[in-house]
């Protein structure tokens, strides 16, 4: 049996890097309080999130990246810095003009690829179960 193939198999006795890092953090607060902000945020976040129609994770991430990139482009310091004679603000705007449609296009293209793979798998499963030529693409 290969390592880690059994359910709940303990593959390492050493703590995870995250746990090791947490153990070295300063413990200024009682243990019970340290998780409080996260628990409170989760408690209020869930009903808020439930009030919105779900968005795919990659699309939500793209949206967040674009908004953050646009906000960063307007940072006051970028107006003074110059590169090749053009203010960094100008380069940031140019970058945003390429980044935003390219990122959104990549999401659509990737989605199309995933869908094609899913349809192919579905057809293969259908052919295996019912034999080829048995209306494998129906319902698509």
């Amino acid at each position, binding site marked *: 049996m290969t390592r880690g193939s059994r359910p709940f198999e303990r593959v390492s006795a050493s703590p995870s890097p995250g746990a090791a890092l947490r153990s070295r953090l300063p413990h200024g607060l009682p243990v019970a309080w340290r998780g409080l902000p996260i628990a409170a945020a989760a408690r209020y976040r869930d009903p808020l999130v439930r009030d919105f129609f779900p968005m795919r994770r990659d699309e939500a991430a793209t949206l967040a990246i*674009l908004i953050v990139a646009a906000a960063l482009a307007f940072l006051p310091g970028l107006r003074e810095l110059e590169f090749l004679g*053009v203010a960094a603000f100008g380069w940031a705007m140019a970058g945003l003009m390429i980044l*935003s449609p390219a990122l959104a296009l990549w999401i659509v293209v990737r989605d199309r690829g995933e869908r094609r793979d899913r349809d192919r798998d579905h057809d293969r499963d259908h052919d295996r179960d019912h034999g080829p030529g048995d209306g494998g693409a129906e319902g698509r």
Partner: protein
Amino acid sequence: MTTEWVLVILYLVGCVGIGVVASRRAQGSGDEYWVAGRRIGTAVNATAIMASLASGGSIIGVMGLAYQTGVPATLALFAGAVLGFPLASLLVARPLRNFGKYTITDFLGHRYAHGIVRALVPILIVVAFTTYMVAQLKAAGITAEALLGVPYEQAVVLATVVFILYVSLGGMLAITWTDVVQGALMLALVLGTALVMVLRAGSPLALIGEATAAAPALGQVAGQPVSHYLGHFVIWATAIPVMPHIVMRVYTARDARGARMSLNLAMLAYSALILAAVFVIVPVGKLGFPELVDADRVFLEVMRAEFPPAIRGVAVAAVLAAVMSTTDALFLACASAIAHDLVGGALGVQLRPRAAAWVRNLATVALGGLALAWALSPPELLSRFYTAGIGLLSAGLFVPLIAGLWWKRANRAGGIAALVVGSGSYVALLLFGAPWGLSPILLALPASALAMIVGAWIGGRDPGAVIDAVARLHAD
């Protein structure tokens, strides 16, 4: 001048010819007329969207602005529109295409079913887009006067007659076909010119470096406050997802994925157009013609100095194409706001197909007449009027549309409140001035969002059937 004239006349006759050919299909039904039967492929739709957005300002204006105020300030104005398209692709394209109607009013009137919404939305569209159309007609007149020597009034009348003919005859199909030709012409001209310049200079970075060394102001941020740039950026970023002529393009796509692909491809092409103009052609103009009194002439001076008459003729046609491709889409969007949204929606008049065709043709002619009358004696600060018009659309429609598509608690009270408070506060801030020197849109949008939240809280949740119907719009 003869070559230029021949090319322009051929081009105008071609546009009307396309309208006549398209009319055979377009006059058949509302689906065919308003959204070209929803059969437009991705590449064609992308080129048409790019052409619709790239107005005369995107060729002549962008270069003049960069020449006068520098590269960073110019890009700040155009980057907002470019960001708006991914926002439209991510937030609006899939659910609206799945909704499958013709206009943005169709969705808002369905989501917030009330007479105020069905009447106010098309009125906002007509008010905002009429100023936009007048600005485009003025650009057509000025361009023809400057390049062909035609008197301004004659050029404006000729352009309006051509628009009315091919828009009323061929609807969205004629507009799509002409926009594809116009978009391809614009891209070929600007990217081709930039490529020639880069090959001569060796690299675009060398070109911009040399130009900013000679004229440092070209690379510096002009002395406007940040809120000025931020205001323009936000107006265009939030207006694109609600612009009726862009939303109608979403409906023309074969499916939601095609609509999203078209929007993003269009924006890559648009970005390439703007960046090539600003980073390549303007530096060449600044080096060759450092003391131009009229900055808007920089592109034409570069073309005159670098290319033979036949290419200059194509340049004239491309500038007119840029103006026309935006104006025809605006004409159709305004005609749909009157004939489809107001007459068919708000007034609830049920018309037979033949009568509906008459109404939309009359609406196109009436709008053309109104825009023409205004364009013959345009106000001095027209560009301010139309930017304000786009801001009004954004302030009034962005929050109701996005909340209506994505927020389950959005309801009729919230939608009406957001629409009225957003557009009302924007107009009030424009008239009486915004505090702290802020751009009006930076206050009107939050006011609209707040009104939506308060309205949703007061009005209670919509019935489950409404929420389920909106949920189905998000399906792949």
